[in-house]
């Protein structure tokens, strides 16, 4: 008994998406409308199709992590290095090899940097740790959760480079850097250790963590100075952008000349240069 109706509904099923989309020829659209008037189940379908279309239109796109861009740039530089020399002489930009080196901790130059960073970090940590007043006799528990015999920044510096040559993984260093500001007050030597980490750590992720930790210590005047000085040293786009955002949000006017230089650097990514330009606009 219901068969003709079901057949009609079955036929409608193929037409309804086009009906909702308003892409049916007028005659067919009228036929569908006539059927809909007397068919609650097809009406429900239309309501659902409209809701679904709205939800599809409202769906947010998936956004990739910035690592995808970094990986692409590294791959591009590798491919450029493989081009025949005739092509490279046509474009005499000297930067490419340096850029690839900066991204991979295994590169030869970074081993040298690691040693240099170790020395600087230990020296800075020990020196500043000794000079500061709270390294002796302070009882607010600053050093209790590290090593009681060492001042916290010195311990941090030591821990970051590893005792007696032991390798500390990047994720452990991030943990150390992130925790560093939880037990310190603005004005102590941790700022200097973090600035050294920001400038010399081989891993961009550790440098980013140092950036964030320094932002929490932003009341210290050395932070503003240090961030500005760090701008020309950074080659990783993520760190560059983080630094630009920080000098802008801290309103460090002194950073403008560095931003101008960064905006013109041929080896900087277009997105970094644009960010630097935008930062200059906000600061001046």
């Amino acid at each position, binding site marked *: 008994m219901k068969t003709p109706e079901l057949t009609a509904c079955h036929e409608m*099923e*193929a037409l*309804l*998406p*086009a009906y909702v989309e308003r*892409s049916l020829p007028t005659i067919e659209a009228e036929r569908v409308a006539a059927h809909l008037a007397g068919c609650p189940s097809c009406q429900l*379908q239309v309501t*659902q*199709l409209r809701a*679904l*279309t709205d*939800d*599809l*239109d*409202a*769906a*947010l*796109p*998936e*956004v*990739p*992590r910035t*690592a*995808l*861009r970094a*990986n*692409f740039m590294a*791959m*591009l530089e590798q*491919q*450029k290095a493989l*081009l025949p020399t005739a*092509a490279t002489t046509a*474009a005499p930009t000297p930067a490419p090899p340096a850029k690839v080196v900066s991204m991979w901790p295994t590169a030869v130059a970074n081993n040298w940097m690691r040693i240099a960073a170790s020395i600087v970090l230990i020296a800075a940590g020990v020196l500043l740790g000794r000079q500061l007043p709270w390294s002796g006799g302070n009882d607010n528990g600053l050093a209790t959760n590290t090593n009681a015999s060492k001042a916290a920044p010195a311990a941090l510096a030591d821990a970051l480079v590893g005792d007696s040559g032991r390798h500390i993984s990047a994720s452990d260093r991030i943990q150390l850097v992130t925790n560093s500001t939880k037990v310190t007050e603005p004005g102590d030597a941790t700022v200097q250790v973090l600035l050294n980490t920001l400038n010399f750590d081989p891993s961009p992720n550790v440098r980013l963590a140092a950036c964030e930790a320094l932002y929490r210590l932003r009341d210290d005047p050395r932070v503003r100075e240090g961030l500005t000085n760090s701008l020309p040293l950074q080659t990783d786009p993520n760190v560059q952008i983080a630094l630009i955002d920080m000098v802008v949000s801290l309103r460090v006017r002194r950073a403008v000349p560095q931003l101008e230089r960064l905006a013109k650097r041929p080896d900087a*990514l*277009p*997105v970094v240069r644009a960010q630097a330009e935008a930062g200059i606009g906000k600061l001046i």
Partner: protein
Amino acid sequence: MAAVRADDLDQLVPLFERYHGPLFNYLTRLTNDRETSEDLTQTVFERILKYRSSYQPTQPFKAWVYQMARNVHADYWQRKEKLRAADVDEVERTGGLRGAAFSQMRVSSHHDDLHEALALLPTPQREILVLNRFQGFGYEEIGKLLGCTAEAARVKAHRALQALRKIYFAGD
């Protein structure tokens, strides 16, 4: 792209900026796996460089790059199937873990149901909806990409929409 073809590789940067987001989105909808999609997007650009000499300047870059992305996804799918045949348990276990990580990454819970429903569609239907609804492809373009007429693409897209509707409102 013509410049990239002539070994001016820096000209790939603007193309990357323009297409890597949409390609990543397309591949994420197909694989339901962000990490894999990042790898696959990278592979697409590697192949663009590798096969740049095969690019015909008369051809729209968009069509060429999506064709490449489809091939990259198809290769990934084949590898995955082989792996599944070799060690079903292992793949199911890591697949489950990845699925869990994937669902935790969601920022907006409102669209979870929609994405789950999309994930349940067969890949060809999902692909056609993703192209049409998320990537802004017209039926003409879809037809060219899938090797069918625009009218066939339209019928397929409507069937896919109905299939998605049934899954999406299954509980109602």
